[in-house]
């Protein structure tokens, strides 16, 4: 009985992490859009309520087909309950990143914080509800490949690196040319940069290993050179940081004459969405 209970909690945790991962995949690009912060700041309470109701309606329909749970919702009540959870997960995740980016601080007035939370939480919640749809993938596709000879290890490592690079570049490409990174960097402190790094690693780990997306059991077996979950997460974070830096250079947000602090700040700030992209890339292969 006790064992069953522990298993229930584990399943629940996996479901929640899967939902959160879907939210990050879908919501992070919009988090780096200052127009959304501004709309959040100036929007009135009536519109906030309308936004909540609208999100709820969309997510309710999504939950009847996709959802974030292992077992998809069959009954209407299940879909309703899942919708409440999806919105809560979305809002909590969005709030977490908004606090990290210092868009919500203790000085932020209440209605502004609420507006930002609700408007940024919307895409996150949609991502939560689409979690299964996103990266369902075919389980067992990799079964034949799991015998690990030396050359296979190398090619698995290479394909992981390139997948991370492609995913990270796609997201970084979207954010690097805009003004958000310099703007966020202006307000950033050493402590918040450190927490951003930790958050990037955690989110990346959750998306690839903890959320139980696709071929995750398979992922936990060692294949490539850095295939242990921890080392893979760290290595892919570094790859994503490099992708972010290259994109910033490409769009001339960074130049060789800039002080190293600017390089560091910008790369870590863009590194968060890039890592999310990189994690998605690794899931897609």
């Amino acid at each position, binding site marked *: 009985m006790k064992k069953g209970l522990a298993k229930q909690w584990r*399943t*629940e945790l996996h479901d929640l992490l899967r939902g959160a991962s879907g939210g990050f995949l879908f919501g992070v690009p919009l988090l780096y859009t200052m127009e959304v912060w501004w709309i959040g700041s100036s929007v009135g*309470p009536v519109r906030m309520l309308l936004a909540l109701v609208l999100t709820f309606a969309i997510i309710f329909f999504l939950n009847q087909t996709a959802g974030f749970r292992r077992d*998809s919702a069959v009954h209407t009540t299940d879909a309703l309950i899942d919708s409440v959870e999806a919105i809560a997960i979305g809002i909590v995740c969005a709030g977490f990143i908004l606090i990290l980016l210092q868009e919500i601080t203790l000085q*932020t*007035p209440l*209605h*502004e914080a609420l507006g930002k939370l609700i408007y940024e939480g919307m895409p996150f919640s949609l991502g939560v509800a689409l979690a299964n749809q996103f990266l369902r993938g075919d389980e067992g596709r990799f079964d034949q490949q799991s015998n690990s000879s030396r050359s296979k290890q190398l090619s698995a490592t290479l394909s992981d690196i390139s997948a991370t690079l492609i995913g990270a570049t796609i997201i970084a490409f979207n954010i690097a040319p805009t003004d958000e990174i310099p703007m966020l960097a202006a307000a950033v402190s050493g402590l918040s940069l450190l927490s951003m790094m930790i958050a990037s690693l955690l989110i990346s780990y959750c998306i690839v290993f903890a959320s139980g997306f696709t071929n995750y059991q398979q992922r936990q077996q060692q294949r490539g050179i850095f295939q242990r979950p921890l080392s893979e997460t760290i290595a892919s974070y570094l790859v994503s940081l490099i992708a972010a830096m290259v994109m910033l250079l490409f769009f001339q947000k960074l130049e060789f004459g800039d002080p190293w602090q600017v390089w560091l700040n910008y790369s870590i700030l863009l590194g968060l969405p890039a890592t999310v992209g990189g994690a998605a890339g690794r899931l897609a292969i």
Partner: protein
Amino acid sequence: MSHSSQERPTRSIAEWTTFGIASTILGAIAGLVIYAWATEQDRPPVLTLERREQIREAQGQYYVPFTVENTGGETVESVQVVAELRVNGQVEESGDQQIDFLSDGETEEGAFVFRRDPRRGELTVRVASYKLP
């Protein structure tokens, strides 16, 4: 997926706990929005500018810090702050500064930089304009 057609098992304690927490969060957010709605008043924006800090001198330049606060109700956009330094009745130096957003109760800080010592002339720092979003 094969299991999507299966009947979903009844909700576990874990699932109910999550639902409880989730609905508390959502309820709190909705409650706060309604609270903001109820306390929302049709107050026009009131922008106050203060110079709380001392003028600072560094490398031949004078820094005049200022603070703008919106003590009214509505959010404003593009708040323009202008500073003028008059010596013997003539404007010797001026500067302006734009603040993107200032919502109800929000404070923004900035500084003007002058080449002459503002303490030796007549310095005015004021909010010149804003627009409504």
